[in-house]
């Protein structure tokens, strides 16, 4: 066994996993408040990445200005989507709302093709290009720096939900909307904020991932592989998103490296299947209370 190789592969996987965790966070925050899995999250990521492209490429802004602008753009998009298309669905079954998010995904793809054409794109380079060595281990600079930026946001979110009553409002709303209303919680605002902050995390991840992997209207598919992460971690657990994100990123990369690229998805979905059987609500998800 080539330990150095294994180490390098693992490192690359862990770094990618950090970005997965960030995307997963986008899922989790929205789910926590609204009990909706947002299937359009990959497309929101994509949209933010295209915004970045437009700002940094088209308008030739400095990438460090374009990045926050794109992320804010993505968050606004999330807020607008919630306000116009999700809010009218209040009280409908979760699966109908999920279907709405799938419809939204289609709209966003069309929009992107319409504005930026279907051509595949590369983002302007804005991360340092010197190889990063951790001890002996080589790590591609893009993912290393992407990981750092992503982790910063991740930590901010974690702290917020640990130390503010915002987290309680989120969970209360998810648990019983009518009761939350009667408690003086502004449910519409909670929903909106959940979408805004969920989209914010996703947008940042979108730009970072597109910076390493390129961009096209099909970019949104990545949202799907991150679904595995949130299910393994538990749909409503921020900690779960973190742990499972890093783990799945690592697993996927190692499986890809040792077994071949076609094994990436099956490997992670195998873990998913096992987790679902032994822990139906993921590693850290809340159990539904079932009493008669």
């Amino acid at each position, binding site marked *: 066994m080539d330990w150095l190789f294994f180490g390098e592969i693992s490192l690359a996987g862990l770094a990618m996993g950090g970005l997965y965790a960030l995307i997963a966070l986008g899922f989790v925050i929205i789910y926590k408040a609204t009990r909706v*899995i947002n299937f359009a999250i990959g497309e929101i990521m994509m949209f933010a990445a295209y915004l970045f492209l437009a700002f940094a490429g088209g308008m030739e802004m400095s990438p460090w200005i374009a990045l926050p602008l794109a992320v804010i753009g993505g968050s606004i998009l999330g807020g607008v989507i919630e306000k116009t*298309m999700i809010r*009218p*669905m209040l009280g*409908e*079954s*979760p*699966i*109908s*709302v*999920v*279907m*709405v998010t*799938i*419809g*939204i*995904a*289609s*709209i*966003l*793809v*069309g*929009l*992107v*093709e*319409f504005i930026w054409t*279907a051509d595949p794109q590369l983002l302007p380079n804005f991360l340092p290009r010197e190889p990063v060595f951790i001890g002996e281990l080589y790590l591609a600079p893009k993912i290393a720096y992407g990981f750092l930026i992503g982790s910063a946001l991740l930590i901010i979110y974690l702290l917020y939900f640990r130390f503010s009553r915002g987290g309680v409002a989120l969970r209360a709303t998810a648990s019983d909307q009518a009761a939350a209303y009667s408690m003086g919680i502004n449910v519409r605002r909670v929903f909106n904020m959940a979408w805004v902050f969920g989209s914010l995390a996703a947008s940042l991840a979108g730009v970072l991932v597109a910076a390493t992997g390129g961009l096209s209207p099909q970019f949104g598919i990545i949202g*799907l592989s991150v*679904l*595995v992460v949130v*299910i393994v971690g538990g*749909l409503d657990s921020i900690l779960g998103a973190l742990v499972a994100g890093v783990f799945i990123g690592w697993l996927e990369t190692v499986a890809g490296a040792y077994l071949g690229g*076609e094994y990436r*998805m*099956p490997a992670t*979905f*195998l873990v*998913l*299947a096992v987790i*679902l*059987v032994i822990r*139906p*609500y*993921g590693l850290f998800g809340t159990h*539904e209370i*079932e009493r*008669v």
Partner: protein
Amino acid sequence: MRIGDAKQSYEADEAIWTSQTQKLWLGFFLLILLVFPFVVDSYLLYLGCLVGIAVISTTGLNILTGFTGLISLGQAGFMGVGAYTVAWLSINTALPFPVTLVLAGLMAAAVGILVGLPSLRVKGLYLAIATLAASVFLHFIFAEWESVTGGMGGLSLEPAHLFGLTFQSDFSMYFIIVPLAVLMVLAARNVFRTRIGRAFIAIRDRDISAEILGINLLRYKLMSFALSSFYAGVAGGLFAYFYRVVTPESFPLSMSIFYLAAVIVGGMGNLLGGILGAAFMTLVPEALKLLTAALTPFYPNAPVFMSPMLEIIFGALIVGFLIFEPHGLAEIWHRIRRFFRLWPFKN
């Protein structure tokens, strides 16, 4: 307007078509289905076949998701199992198509039972993702088990045959697909007249109390999975005979989403809704293409310009539908019917 329809017996009361008017309409509808292939062009015929296949698969998914409350994103995978079974059988055996179709259904049902196993513990959207996992595995198997599935290249098969007849043209396929679709919808309707259908609905509404009332959850959830994937398998088998080539990419995730959308847009837990949904989802993109065609003479670049537009419109239609009529097409249909039943006496 329809007046007074008191029933003399419980049998008459539980019949599906309880009034003369309804029977008349039904007869009329069947007649249209019969005449249809003789009067339309090949493209409409083709669409007719597609809708038929979609109706079968959607009805299956409706049983599982709409009536039993188990959300599945694996329908395309189950159809794939059916399609590969038919392809393999028709290449390696001389079985006639009715047999291969039944075997395709049974094979898919077997896989469905396997996939359904976690459903005892896993619920709601978690289950949806579990079925998504299953379809990823199925895709993997389709792509990698080359000796049976032909790998990425897939399998090509001969037309369906029976008693020396071969069913090659869309015209002849129509006469397999559409009667089968009618039959299978009716069978599904029957299930919901009996204790089994009631058990499914009970599980959807409240599974734990259903259990205490004497419904064996595992058994009925698996039965629902089996029945649903049987339908998918048959639809997949028809798909195979229809296109006569089966590849792993014939059954992408987007297809599962397509069927789920058909069920939801049509109206969950409503068989008629499923049929309307299947037709809607198949035909709307076609209608949108007609729009493009109508624009092309005036604006030659219309196809390029319109194709992203179509995606936007398609998505917007789904979203708009669910926002304005969350209970789906079936609800709209009922509203129209109520209107005509009282007609001409409004309100």
